[in-house]
């Protein structure tokens, strides 16, 4: 049974990596960071965060030939 638990945790790790590399969990990670650095202040909403991160992502060179 131990190998099953290991496989499940490995699958979870891979899934979290996929979510991180695509930006799927960017808001969750932002909330976590906000909680730790600015506790007590209201965080951005999902849409506000999405807009802001899109503007930031596309203001520099991040795609190539």
């Amino acid at each position: 049974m131990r190998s099953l638990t290991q496989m499940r945790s490995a699958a979870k790790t891979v899934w979290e990596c996929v979510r991180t590399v695509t930006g799927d969990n960017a808001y969750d990670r932002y909330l976590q960071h906000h909680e730790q650095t600015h506790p007590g202040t209201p965080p951005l909403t999902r849409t506000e965060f999405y807009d802001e991160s899109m503007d930031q992502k596309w203001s520099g060179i991040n795609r190539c030939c």
Partner: protein
Amino acid sequence: MSLAYFPGTCDYAQPPGQRLMLEPGGLVSSIGGQMANKILGIVLAIIAALAIGGIALYRNEPINALWIIVAAVCVYTLGYRFYAAWIAAKVLSADATRATPAERLNNGRDYVPTHRWVVFGHHFAAIAGPGPLVGPTLAAQFGYLPGTLWILVGSVLGGCVQDMVILFLSTRRNGKSLGQMAREELGPFGGLSALIGTLMIMIILIAVLGLVVVNAMKHSPWATSTVAATIPIAIFIGFFLRRIRPGRVLEGTLLGVILLVASVWGGGLINESATLRGWFDHAGPPLALAVIAYGWLAAILPVWLLLAPRDYLSTFLKLGVVALLAVAIIIMHPTLKMPAITQFIDGTGPVFTGKVFPFVFITIACGAISGFHALVSSGTTPKLITNEEDCRLAGYGSMALESFVGIMAMIAATLLDPGVYFAINTGTGIVGAAAVDAVQTISSWGFPVTVDQMQDLAKEMGESTLFARTGGAPSLAVGMASIFGTSFGRGLMSVWYHFAIMFEAVFILTTVDAGTRVGRFMVQDLLGQMWKPLGNTSSWPSTLIASTLIVAGWGYFLYIGVIDPNGGINILWPLFGISNQMLACIALSVATGIIIKKGKIRYAFVTAGPLAFLATVTTVAAFQKIFSADPKLGFFAAADDLATKLAAGSLPADRIASAPQLIFNQNLDGWLTVFFTLVLWFVIADMLRVAYCRLTGRAVPASSEAPYQPTKLNGTTGAPAHA
């Protein structure tokens, strides 16, 4: 690779002590590991030598693509495990105890300590574009050998090194851009050159990529309707990701990819309907205008509406197709029908003119070494690096994978019958517009092809014709369709062909969008220095003016390329190659200057070697493009030749109208080449000046490196970045 070495979550940095088993610094640093490392290295070197030897020597019989795949994988592994590790340790002195900007400046947004496999994915998605697909396809006219050797050697000794070193230097400097590093480490001239060079290459790049898409859509209702459908699909996903399910990228992307695949199938239905066909059956010039209008709109619309969702779709497709192609090539293991070396190494090639030296090195930029990567390596990626040693995987590793994409494109081009390859890639200006003339000329070169064979192939691919479909995309799509069709089902050839076209178009258009937008910001920055209000990126008049200027810039080159009877690509692609290699020379000059300033001149050859080689080939190529008296090769010679013919009245009637524009364009391209060459040598001179000052004890610009701070992300505390 043991999963026990994989950290539990991705957003936490892994402790520096925790390395994968197969990497130096991990288990291999133990004595037994060193032994194992050496043995593995020797085994890999022997396999690589056998495979490359096999490729190079057995020229009398056709070789199997698996030889090339094996050689490539061994060469990349050797380069990554030994050369890159040596550079990181000795030349750069990568320090695992040093806090990176991601840790020191962590803001939860762009500066975030990120797991290195995630950084690798990010960086690969950012650098991988259509370049390594198109360049090798064009260079296949020399045979498979010159291009393949250059892709392998150029990447492990040049491109991968450039990407890793620039990524590392930018990480040491809090994620500064190449332009900032050039200005601070060399001087104001270096900085200005990098800025202007970047803007110019952006314009040429977008034009040439636009040309590739237009040529793929020309008189192809299936391709045009599929590519057109990607726009409403992207907009729908844009709304989905902002309004319906904000930020749920995976859901949105999955939905979008399903719609894109459906659009390929839908394009087939449109192709079969006589009335609908007409709506999407267009010549080059109107399609070029449509792409220009699209680029202008994409630059001014909010990013969430079109650019961001299109990029999610294109990144997903890109990674999926690269993986699928690798699997399919191994399943199919095709025999390469193109000879190892063709007679066109003498400079008489029909796809583009010029001898194998220096033009193979200009034609294949991305895939071997690409200056553009230095802009990405000094952009978002350095802000994600958790540990300086991760630069090796993200910088060197991503470029090795990109180079492998170039190898696969070379295989896809050379598995075609050479006659078919030349029939697709040769412009009507060279072999004539009539199919009978074209097959006769091409067969006379020793590459037999018949009209029936081309018609059958076109029918199989669902196209009306495949003659003179220049630009690289159609021949690559035929090659990819053969690979996918043979491996996964032959009945669907036309669907595979249009899937390949859609795949190329989607991420070319992403580059067009993103490039136009960045170009717009750069123009606004420049205009703002002249008159402040013009620099405001949220002001509508400024946005409209800057967007129009940048679109006019690349739109001009695109339109001229489309009306050129020789296909346009044979003018624009060398210009793009020269400008891209010029940018690589700027990046390598910055790196060499910094290494020398650090007092490590004995290691400077790591970047100075590729710099010397690239500067030589780029200058020789530029010299030929400027001074050659052959109108097929020299820009000015072509302008003079056309002007003489126009004055003598010996031009065919249909070419008289466009002749003055083509004459002007050839002259302009000639002067641009002069400009690129001068910038290239001025930057090298600037670097040599700094090196001379350093070596003779004179003053040099101070290092802009951020001061050392110890990392808190170590194995003993195991603390996350921002605890």
